[in-house]
Structures are given as C-alpha cells and as structure tokens.
C-alpha cells in the first residue's frame, strides 16, 4: 500500500472515533431523562419522497415567542431579553432605538439548552387564545385555506396540542437541571436559539426582543429498527400535507388527529435525545380535552 494512502485512512478513522466518543459520552451511565411522549410531540414525516425505508419522527413544540402579529398579546414570552443575554446574545441596543432594526437583523443563532415544560399552565392559555381566534375569525383560520377547522377540530385542540412548551433556556445544562429538577415534568433539549426583534410586542407594546427556538438538535429522531415495522404503515397518512393550523395569528402546534403512537425517549447525559421504543396505540387514543400533563 502506498504511504500516501495512510492519511485518508487515518482521517476516516479519526472521524468515526470522534463520533464514537460523542456517543459514549452521551449514553454512558444513567440518562438524564426518560419520558413518554406521543404523536402530539413527535410527528411522523415522510422523507426523501418516501424513498427512504428509515422512519424518522419530527419534533413538534409550542412557540417560545409570539408571532409577528399582535394577536398573541398576553401570551407568555418564554425567552425574553434576560434569557437571551444569558445565552450570549448582545442585547445592548434598545429595541426601540433607530439603529436597532439593522443591529438585530441577521444575527447568527446560538446553541443552547431549552427547558420544555410538559405540564405548563401557559399551554392552556395558548389553546384558549387559539380557539377564541378560530371561532371569532373564520376567514383567518388557515392561511393555506385548507379545510379541516370545523367546530369539532377546534374543540379537539386541547387533546391534540403538543405538550412541549419552552419555558427557559441557558448555556449550562446542569445549572438548568438544578433549577428544573423534576425530570418527569421538565425535558431539557439542545437547540439553536434565534433572536428576533418584534416591531410591536402585542397590543400597544412597543418593539421588543424575543427568543425563538430555531430548531432542536437533532431536528428528527430515527425510529429504531425494532419499532420501525409497527410504525411504518402509519406513514401512508402524510401529515406534511396538512400543516398545523394557525388561527387569526395565534399559533398552536398540534396534531391533525388523535395520537396514534407513544414514543419513549431517553435524553442522555449530554442531553442528546433518542428513541427507545415506539408503541402503536390501537385503536387511536381519544384523550380527554383537559389532558395536558405528562403521560
């Protein structure tokens, strides 16, 4: 073998060793959290135009910040300026200052750990706001004009809304865990947090800085081969063609139908989530409207 080939072989080896080290560091010892979610929080998506035989679940969580409209006035802001500053964003320019618009445009996101509350009281107010807007502004129910927002769909929202509600974020996962010690209620996940400047922070409020969860890391979780066969038939009902509805400017992340499967996930020592098992609910569950706590 030519000596010049040793280098690419060594680099390929190092890359795989690096991956192995990351996996061992995260999965060695007891996981930080083991929790059961369902289709409300992890939706089944088709990928690569269904060319792939692997099955992935996509995260679904409630927004951390109000949308750009004023319709969400009164809904809590999970990631405010203080949290953003703690994550490392430069928030030194007042959001109402003339130079603020350009100062806060195009700011790269920051990697952080986001705390999700599985039993948040804020979820109830978001659901109520969404239902009120859906009932009072029928013309604004769905920006895509897609059908499906009849009264039964509106009434079913509490049973279909994702329970993952962001409540806090920080750079230090251990410090967050100390603050949110209930491992059954609070799930801490790595994410990219993005800073957004709102022109009007709801109602008569002026400009404000809010943080939003740009995406969880990773954005999808692979269903292990042992559970794949059970879940695969459900892929036929492609959810990507039915976006979660927005009603009159209020966003509510929710499943278009009752949960069809439960997902047990473990979050490792370095807060990397992974699927342990997926169980199909047969027949699909019809949770009570008020069920928003952890399963």
């Amino acid at each position, binding site marked *: *073998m*030519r000596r*010049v*080939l040793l*280098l*690419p*072989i060594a*680099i*390929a080896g*190092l*890359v*795989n060793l*690096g*991956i192995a080290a*990351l*996996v061992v560091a995260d999965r060695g010892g007891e996981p930080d959290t083991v929790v059961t979610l369902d289709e409300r929080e992890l939706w089944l998506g088709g990928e*690569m135009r269904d*060319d*792939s*035989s*692997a*099955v*992935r679940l996509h995260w679904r969580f409630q927004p951390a910040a109000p949308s750009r409209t004023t319709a969400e006035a009164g809904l809590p802001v999970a990631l405010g300026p203080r949290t953003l500053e703690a994550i*490392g964003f430069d928030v030194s320019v007042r959001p109402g200052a003339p*130079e603020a618009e*350009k*100062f806060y*445009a*195009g*700011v*790269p*996101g*920051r*990697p952080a750990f986001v705390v999700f509350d599985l039993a948040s009281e804020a979820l109830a107010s978001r659901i109520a706001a969404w239902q009120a807007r859906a009932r009072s502004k029928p013309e604004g129910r769905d920006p895509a004009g897609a059908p499906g927002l009849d009264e039964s769909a509106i009434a079913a929202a509490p049973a279909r809304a994702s329970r993952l509600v962001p409540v806090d974020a920080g750079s230090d996962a251990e410090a967050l865990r100390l603050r949110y010690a209930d491992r059954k209620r609070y799930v801490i996940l*790595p994410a*990219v947090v993005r800073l957004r400047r709102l022109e009007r922070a709801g109602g008569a409020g002026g400009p404000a800085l809010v943080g939003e969860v*740009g995406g969880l*890391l*990773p954005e*999808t*979780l*692979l269903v*292990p*081969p042992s559970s*794949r066969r059970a879940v*695969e038939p459900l892929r036929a009902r492609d959810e990507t063609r039915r976006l979660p509805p927005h009603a009159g400017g209020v966003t509510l992340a929710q499943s278009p139908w009752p949960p069809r499967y439960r997902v047990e996930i473990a979050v490792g020592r370095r807060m*990397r*989530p*992974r699927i342990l098992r997926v169980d199909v609910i047969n027949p699909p569950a019809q949770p009570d409207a008020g069920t928003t706590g952890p399963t």
Partner: protein
Amino acid sequence: MPDFSLPGSQGGAQARADRIRAFELELEEVERDGVLRLTPDERLRLASYHRALRGALVARFDIDVLEGQKPASLGLKLAAIVGALAVATGLALFFFRIWGVLPMAAQVGIVVAAPLAALAGAEVLSRSIRYRVAAGLFVVLSFAALVLNVEVLGAIYSLAPSATVLLGYGAFGVSLAYAYRHRLILAAGAVCLAAWVAAALVASTGGWGLDFAMRPEGVLLGAGGLALWSAVPHGVRYEGFPAVLRTLTMLLVAVAVLLMSRAGHLSYLPADPDAVEVAYQIVSFIVALTAMAIGIKRRWPEVTATATALLAIASLLKFVDWWWDWMPRYLFFLIAGAMALAVSWLLQRVRRRLLKGA
C-alpha cells in the same frame, strides 16, 4: 533510438505532444515557403523520433496526440464527473432505500466501511493508466461515502449537526486529492475547509457555526487561507492544483465582498452598516482591479477571468444603485455596455504591451 527525457506529469506530457504537433505544422509551412528544406534522411529521422516519442508519451500518460482527441477527452472528463456524481447519489439513495430493513450493526458496518472500500477500488484501478477515469470515479465515491458515513451515523445516534464535520470532510477530500491528483475533489475539500474556518469563527463568538453564511467575512478568512495554500510550491506532480485553489479563492472573495457590499449589518466590524456597505463596495473594485493586474502579470488566466467577473458584477450593482430608478432603461444599458467596452479596450492595451515586451 535516443533515450527520451519524458516529462514528470500528464500535463507536461500533453504540452510536449502539443509542441511536437505545432512544430510539424510549422515545418511544413517553412518548407512550403522555401526557407528550409530537410533532406529525406533528416525528415525520416525526425519523423521516426517524434513517432517513438509520441508512443512513449501515450503509453505512459494516456494523452491526446491526434486531431479530435482533445474534444473527446474533454467530453470524457465531463461525462466522468457527471457519472461519478450520479453514481454517488444513486448509491446513497439506494442505501437510504434499504437501511431501514437492515439491523443497526449492519447499517453502521456498511457506512463505516464504504469510504475505505471505495478508496481500495480507486487504488487498484489507478495502477493502470487505462483505468484512470474509473479510478477518478472511485475517488469521488470515496469522498461521497465519507459524507454518507457521517450523516447516517449522526441520524442513527441522534447527533446534533456540527460544523466540525466540515473539517473532517475537507481534510479527507484534500488527502484524497493529493493521493490521486484529483482536482474536483481538491476543490470540494478546499471549499469544506474554507467553510469550516468561517464556521469556527462564528462558533468562537458563541454563535451557531452552521450559520456562517450570516457572517460572510469569515469566508474571506477561509479564502485567505486558500490563497496562501496556492502559493506553496506544488511541483509538476500537482500542476493545476494552484490554479484550482486560486480560482476558489477568487470565487469566495467575490461572493463575500459582494454580499457585504449589500448587507453591511452582517459584518463583524463595530461600524455603521451603511458605512460598512460603502467600504466593501470600494473594496470590491480594489480587489477586482488588483487581482486583474496580478492575473495578467503572473499569467494566471483563472484569476483574471474571475476578477473581471467580480468587476462586472460590482459595477453593475453600483450602476443599478445610482441610475436604475431615474434613468431611461435604454440609456442605462448603453452606459453599462460602454463601460464594458472601456474595460475591453484597457485589457487590449495591456495585451499589446505584453506582446511588445515578448
């Protein structure tokens, strides 16, 4: 039969064959004009020397010596590149098609072994000059397989995407390129390394590295690294590599400078975004003109070409800023055309000066 002193690289061999062909054609013209006439014996010795030399060059380097061979070779190279990319995509999609039904150990084993298996294929094929194109295809497959390796393991083990993988891709691609003198993979690896530098700069400030496109100045740093790398002597063995690196340098600089000249708020500089935009507009012209001058002086056509393109785009953007809103369209395009003709005239003068100096 004399001993041939053969060139050390395929490019050198092709240049020698081209010179022989030009010499033969010129000799025909000279003889037709009666300036010189070789004796039949001299003509025979010369022809037999060239025939033997061509044979040796073809046997060793598989070069083009006949009319019409070069276009065919160019087509062959393009087809090989398209073929390699298509085969790599096809194999990746095939893997995605079947990986769900494979046990996890098999999934991991396949993706870890794939880059090394493709590398072994490239090594075996590269031993024969006849399978040069096929060996190149396996080099591309090896690079693509490493990317697949990382992506699939990342999915299996729920790893967060990270800009650090760009370093792995870049280092692997560059090491492959030097092992097999593969310019396409050199370009791919160099772009990954430049992107990694930009991403590392964002990450060093606590930002999300993969958002490096939101801080284009980091790309300038990566491009600077490529420029330094291109200045390292490569010898005849890697001829063509510096030109690839210079082209990438110019392209990255052009993209970053043009972006910054329109979006000053993306700058690291603690300055007013409007002032940053104006500064980068000036920089774009200085960079383009300087690079054109260097390209002409050092005879780097790739640098001259990309610098001219940068100058043209920067000028057009500035003209749009100044005139588009109020000037009649016909006048706008007439002025833009006149400017292009002025640049052509300038380059023509430079060309004539170079001819006089020759």
